[in-house]
């Protein structure tokens, strides 16, 4: 009997640039993957129903879609909403999983997936920053983070500072906490993000976005300290667990 593996749709085009390593991470977690250009999906008229039927996971990889012009992720979000018209909440409600990494996360925020009171902007120090951080899951809502402890991951962004609408900050934040939306936090704060937030999920826990790059730590030899622990040179990296969680979830269905 041939068991079909769950499939992941990895978006590319318009300046997205992490599609290959993102697809590779999903493959290491035993998924089948398709890397598809946004324009092809638009051209073929792929609808939400087609997406739900064919794919267990939708991945929005990192990159510089539209050159980060008019703020990061903005025009990609407009294109997803206006040209593809996919309602990601419905996709999730039907059992689909969505991940947005870095620029993909910024686009999810601009699409309003995490509510209209949250946004993301320039790091408080005003610079692009490539460094490694420790992040810890909080709240337990996000299915992508199940069972994860503190993990090391790289960040590589100029606009990773999560912001909550200043006029309604307290109630908006409380609501997000209550719903489990605030699902991943930094140790320390590399970009001035609200309450050290590194990632958010929707109320179902199935749509997940984060600034750090889990796909960039799927083998231990990516870690900046790996040469001090050379016995682990063949070990998988800590980011792989995120993709493996998705596999467990997709198969549990």
């Amino acid at each position: 009997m041939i068991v079909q593996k769950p499939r992941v749709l990895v978006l590319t085009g318009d300046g997205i640039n992490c599609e290959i390593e993102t697809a590779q991470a999903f493959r290491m977690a035993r998924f089948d993957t398709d890397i598809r250009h946004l324009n092809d999906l638009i051209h073929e008229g792929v609808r939400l129903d087609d997406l739900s039927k064919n794919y267990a996971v939708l991945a929005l990889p990192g990159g510089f879609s539209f050159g980060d012009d008019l703020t990061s992720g903005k025009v990609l979000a407009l294109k997803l909403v206006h040209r593809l018209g996919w309602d990601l909440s419905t996709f999730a409600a039907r059992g689909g999983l969505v991940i947005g990494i870095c620029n993909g996360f910024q686009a999810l925020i601009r699409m309003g997936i995490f509510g209209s009171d949250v946004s993301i902007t320039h790091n408080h120090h005003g610079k692009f920053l490539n460094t490694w951080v420790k992040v810890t899951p909080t709240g337990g809502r996000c299915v992508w983070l199940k069972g994860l402890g503190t993990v090391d991951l790289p960040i590589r962004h100029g606009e990773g500072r999560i912001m909550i609408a200043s006029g309604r900050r307290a109630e908006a934040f409380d609501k997000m906490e209550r719903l489990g939306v605030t699902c991943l936090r930094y140790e320390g704060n590399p970009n001035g993000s609200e309450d050290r937030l590194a990632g958010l999920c929707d109320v179902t826990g199935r749509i997940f976005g984060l600034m750090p790059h889990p796909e960039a730590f799927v083998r231990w030899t990516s870690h900046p300290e790996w040469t001090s622990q050379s016995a682990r040179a063949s070990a998988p990296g800590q980011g792989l667990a995120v993709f493996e969680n998705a596999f467990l979830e997709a198969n549990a269905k």
Partner: protein
Amino acid sequence: MFARIEVAVRPDLLDSPAQGILRRIELANPALRRKLRWARMLDIYWIDILVTREELIPAMGEVCWDPVLQWMFTGNLMPSAAGKTGGLQDLMQLAPFRPGSFWGIERRFRPGVTDNRGRTLLEAFEIVLGKKLPQARAASGGLFLLEGTELDDEILANLAREVFCNELIETWTVVPEDGLKKNDRFHQERIKYDLPKVLGGGAIRSFSPSSSSLFPDSSFGRPETLVLDSLSDSQLEDLSQRKLWALSLLEMKAVRDHFSSPEEKGKRQGLGLTDPTDVEMEVIAQTWSEHCKHKIFNAKISYRGAKNNGNSYEPAIPSEINGLFKSTISGTTAELPKPWLISVFDDNAGICALDEEDAFCIKVETHNSPSALDPYGGALTGIVGVNRDILGCGYGAKPIFNTNVFCVAPPDYSQDLPDRLLHPRRILDGVRRGVEHGGNQSGIPTVNGALVFDNRYLGKPLVYCGTGGLMPRKIQNERCEVKKVDVGDRIYMVGGRIGKDGIHGATFSSLALDESSPLSAVQLGDPLTQKRAADFLLEARDLGLYRAITDNGAGGLSSSVGEMALLSGGASIDVILAKTKYSGLKPFELVISESQERMTVAVPPEKQHDFLALAERRAVEVSDLGEFTNTGRFEIAYAGQIVASLDLQFLHGGVPRLELKAEWKSPPAGVTSVGSVAIENTPESLRSFELLAADILLGLMSRPNIASKEWLIRQYDHEVQGMSVVKPLHTAFAGTPSSWSGPNDAGVVKPKPFSDIGLAVGCGINPKLSDIDPFIMAQSAVDEAVRNVLCVGAEFGQRESVLALVDNFCWPDPVGDPLKCGWLVRACYGLRDAALALSAPLVSGKDSMKNDFRGKRNGQPISISVPPTLLMTAVARVADIKFARTADFKTVGDWIYLLGPSELGLLGSEFLDLHSDFSEIPLRVGTPLWNVARRLYSWIGGTQGKQQNKLKSLHDVSDGGVLVAVAECLLARGWGATLTLPPERNAWELAWGEGFHTFIASLSDEEGVGVEAEWRELGIPFIRLGKVEPHDRFEVLLEGSPSDRSLLRLPIQKLRSAWLKEGYWE
């Protein structure tokens, strides 16, 4: 309708862009910064879109406004978008100082300058409005709103010029407070006026290829003809200079003779051509430019060496050199036949086999002249330009890493600047941003680089940009390096459009920079357009939709089509078919413009349909310009009328050979090399060493050439593509408050997901030694580049070991200056000597020969030439990335070794730059010992990484010498070390000297004894210096009896802060 949109960060939120500008003001002009009390940075957009108000207003909100973060002002279109008045007054009222004194500086691009945000804005409106907007226009700009005391028009004008704008590409207006409060800038007529328009030369008409009458004005597009026959020598020279052709008299005469030969006249008559047209002259000038033809490297040179007066290493250099390129570059590689060399020196990049399936390619370019005028645009186009070399290499490769090396004057340069030169801090900031945007936005990791400081880079900064690529060795059943074009293949231009930007780039870079350097030489890059084109082309490659590819770099279409025409034997294009940014471009401008993001491909006619369909789907613009022929000529038409017909043989082979004289006078004071005779430690010299050592070490750690570059490195994405193995920095306690990073010697990436094979990339550059002898300088650059890749785990010394070198010469003009030419000769022979000694073939290279500035400072003439600078880039295979290494000491108790001959001298050292009056001991220079080097390097890089794995860390001894190198290995973990120097070695030379083949290594206690025995047996020199200690001090002792003598004792924390040099960089 027209609209002006102003977007501000909400007043209660931190405005990071404004803070960034304030910081730049503080660095450039601290007194001015103190006058500024408050600042906000607004994005400004001007649009002209033919839709109704009702459609436009909601779309504007959706496209431009984030209500959580921003306020938006649109005049009266969306009055409710901000606070009370919906205008700037709302912001100003919330400034902390009231009643304040407010000013604005508004900047916008000059007409025709690439405006990426404007382009994206239109795309966003198309997405939201759900329709194409072919007639719409959009532009982006910025408004710097500030409040402060004692400000006036003049101060703000200076601020605009010095910090806020680059006047080559932007214009600015100072707006006083009452102007800010008025709303007239939102009026339709005013916006219409503010939108940048390009005014072409003479004929401004919009025409499309489909319109029936292309020439409302029939004279437009007709080329100018140039009668050369009747011109005197000086008139020929004048003409070349006036037209910026950079052709010498000899070359002008060769052109004249060619066009007046009866044979050529006969051929041209049939085409309706007589004297050469401006298009033809421009194509010849581009093709024959130093930039494209490397005339100096091909010149015949007579060289006269110096009598050997006391210098102990005088090399053998012939007195008649039949082209430096042939004798010392390609000739050297020919003597090193390696099974893994696939294509060297005849493509856009060198191609080498990585394994049975894949090949890698490597190219390093310089972009010095454009970066001197506009550092941001120059560096950005430098990096995306060299990316295109890789895309256009062989059948087309995927860029997988970038490298960059900048040579600039120190950022704290405080003397008056010559006219038109930018302050080094501005240069550094601009090139940093350029590479950041070019590399990060393209999704290519920046894995290696260097910064070199010297006052002589004030006249021309050197900006080296390198890219490595990967491609399958077989593509479409063809070997990856094969470039083939068939007669009848269509010629397509892919990617960007043509504008006036970058006209005369190739010939301009072949001239010295002076006050009248042309503005059109400046280009801005558009990484998104290039990324789209690159993705499309790699997809088209794998589908077999094109047959051959090359990039449009220097010389534009004249070079790309002109060179590809050699593959079929001719080409015929009509340049009116090329997509342009605006109308009104003359035929010659279309041919030689260096507008960015363009590739040229040969598409077989039967593949055209699929090629066009894919391009359309990928939103990539392509233009069908014509076809490849076998007529032996490069024919260019404009709307069907022939404007150029050039004999290909003449075009590519007709340039007269240059003859140069070169001379070498002995180095400053009869340089002696260190050799094996040690200078004795006298009691006095030890006392003064002891007294000064701590200050010297701290001083060296904070030399700009040595100090931490973490501030720069972390602004580059060095990990995208998921291949990172060894990063530019090693880090201890990553992600925690005690996280600290130290330097690595080179980068390692893992290019293939299912193989543990790695690629190491490192560089060597040591211009200081040029002042002593460029021969040693070049040897040193090669040795350093090789040592750097060895440090991170490169293989070496086996038959199959892959180690390739790339050379990049940046020289002061050697034409007509025998001394400078002599330096060049010596550097080339030094390079050859080192490459042969280490059996490392050169696979690619580039030279930039006009790195001089002539201008005025305070009304006085001044000329500045860069020191002769050779960048060597080494790319080597790492057999198994699990055995890659970093420079940091890993464990307390590990032994620290000085590995290698350690014949280190003070001449050409950082120490001597710091203490130029030093006279305690004689000054000597380190020279190579290639036999020892081969034994040592083969041990380090041999036997498939098994022996390599015993070394727990390896770091090369370079700038600053041994103690600086040891300190760099300690910084990250913060542990201490105690070193004991052997008394028979001179303490000054051993501590601060620099030289060849020497490393700092560490071994575990268990491995130490066995490895030492191996080294002794193999004749590899080493000194066991000491141990990594659990304390936090760096101690240096001199071995003695009855007890050791302490020479230096410093807390690691002090070394760390000296090395960080916080507040100096940005």
